[in-house]
């Protein structure tokens, strides 16, 4: 993985995914170290994403590295009309690694082709967000003790949610059963069902999950955005069918954990927060360890 850019979750083999999870576990025990001393990491955020950027910067700072970069395109030379290629070529001279967030799909792959240092994709439009996926995997492994043979419930916007698509691809290496719960307009796209069919992985589609949640090992909640609906009435009709509240967790499996990529709006009621099955805030903390693992393995330090 040394010197190899991380652009898409499919860039890593199942073995490499597990390796990153193991290293993240080491950082969880000891997340303040000096191993990035003398290293400069560029965080280039062509669109704002406070949560992701802070997580990366926290990961680097705790390991003694330094950060350069910008937090949105308006404060960079992009505003003057500089091409992405020129920006990346220039910044390559100033750092050991580039972390990049960009609104265009495919921008991160392109950046990795023109950069002279490795690139980590921190989100390219609606396409990929591999570090989110790795932190999800780490959270699943940590809470379940394994990634194998789990019953995974994906809830909410399964059509546009890139975290859901990446998680589906990555978990399909470990023989899961998937339950997809979404309104009709936001169902999982056919290409992913075809992918699962080809791999022989079991999946079921539902429009409601209050009954079947008893079988879940992981419930992965996502936000349903109003602007995704062509008909606002349709949104009003379905918005409350995909809300998780504390009562629904009665009788669920002991090992069940609720995950969410955050930010949450109303799809998980606040009464769930104190339930020990709620895991989304710890999941965000795991993001720091996972990003420490990714950065240090790409820089050849782990």
């Amino acid at each position: 993985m040394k010197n190899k850019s991380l652009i898409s979750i499919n860039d890593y083999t199942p073995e490499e995914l597990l390796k990153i999870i193991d290293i993240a576990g080491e950082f969880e025990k000891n997340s303040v170290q000096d191993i990035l001393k003398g290293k400069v990491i560029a965080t280039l955020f062509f669109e704002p994403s406070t949560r992701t950027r802070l997580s990366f910067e926290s990961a680097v700072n705790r390991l003694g590295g330094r950060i350069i970069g910008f937090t949105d395109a308006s404060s960079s030379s992009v505003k003057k009309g500089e091409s992405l290629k020129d920006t990346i070529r220039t910044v390559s001279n100033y750092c050991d690694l580039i972390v990049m967030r960009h609104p265009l799909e495919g921008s991160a792959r392109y950046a990795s082709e023109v950069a002279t240092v490795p690139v980590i994709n921190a989100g390219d439009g609606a396409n990929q967000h591999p570090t989110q996926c790795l932190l999800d995997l780490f959270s699943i492994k940590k809470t379940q003790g394994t990634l194998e043979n789990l019953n995974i419930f994906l809830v909410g916007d399964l059509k546009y949610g890139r975290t859901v698509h990446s998680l589906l691809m990555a978990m399909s290496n470990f023989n899961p059963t998937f339950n997809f719960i979404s309104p009709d307009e936001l169902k999982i796209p056919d290409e992913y069902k075809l992918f699962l069919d080809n791999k022989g992985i079991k999946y079921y589609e539902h429009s409601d999950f209050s009954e079947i949640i008893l079988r879940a090992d992981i419930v992965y909640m996502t936000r349903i955005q109003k602007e995704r609906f062509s008909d606002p009435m349709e949104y009003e009709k379905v918005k409350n069918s995909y809300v998780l509240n504390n009562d629904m967790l009665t009788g669920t499996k002991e090992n069940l954990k609720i995950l969410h990529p955050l930010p949450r709006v109303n799809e998980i009621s606040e009464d769930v927060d104190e339930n020990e099955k709620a895991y989304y805030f710890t999941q965000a903390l795991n993001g720091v360890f996972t990003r420490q693992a990714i950065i240090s393995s790409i820089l050849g330090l782990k």
Partner: protein
Amino acid sequence: MTDKRILSVTAIKDGTVIDHIPAKSLFKVISILELDTLNTQMTFGTNFNSKKLGRKALIKISNKFFKDEEIDKIALVAPDAKLNIIKDYQVVEKREVEVPDKIVGIVKCMNPNCVTNNEKVVTKFDVVSKKDVALKCCYCEKITDQEHLKII
């Protein structure tokens, strides 16, 4: 007499004849093969009757022989194209075209939010299906299918 004159224009001594091009794809084939940059003699014919294609086009190029990877690119717009390789007025070889495994340039990614449609990037695709052509963009990872396939 008339027949003889047509023959003298169209027959080539050495070169390549590309037949069974759908009439509507003739200019796309010319552009993909960059025939406008060649200095050899060429004949283009179009709107001939064809049982299979309805109306077909034909290209005859003197003293030009294509490499497989060069000619296979036209399979995207002329999947039924047939090549006749001519040497000393005789057809010495016939071949068909096959969609290659990778496409670089030529095709536009159908995703308007793809980096290739917004920055100066040459497109690059993995061919995921050859029968009903489906191309997966190496950048945005979206599929461009036959219906949305646009030649640059």
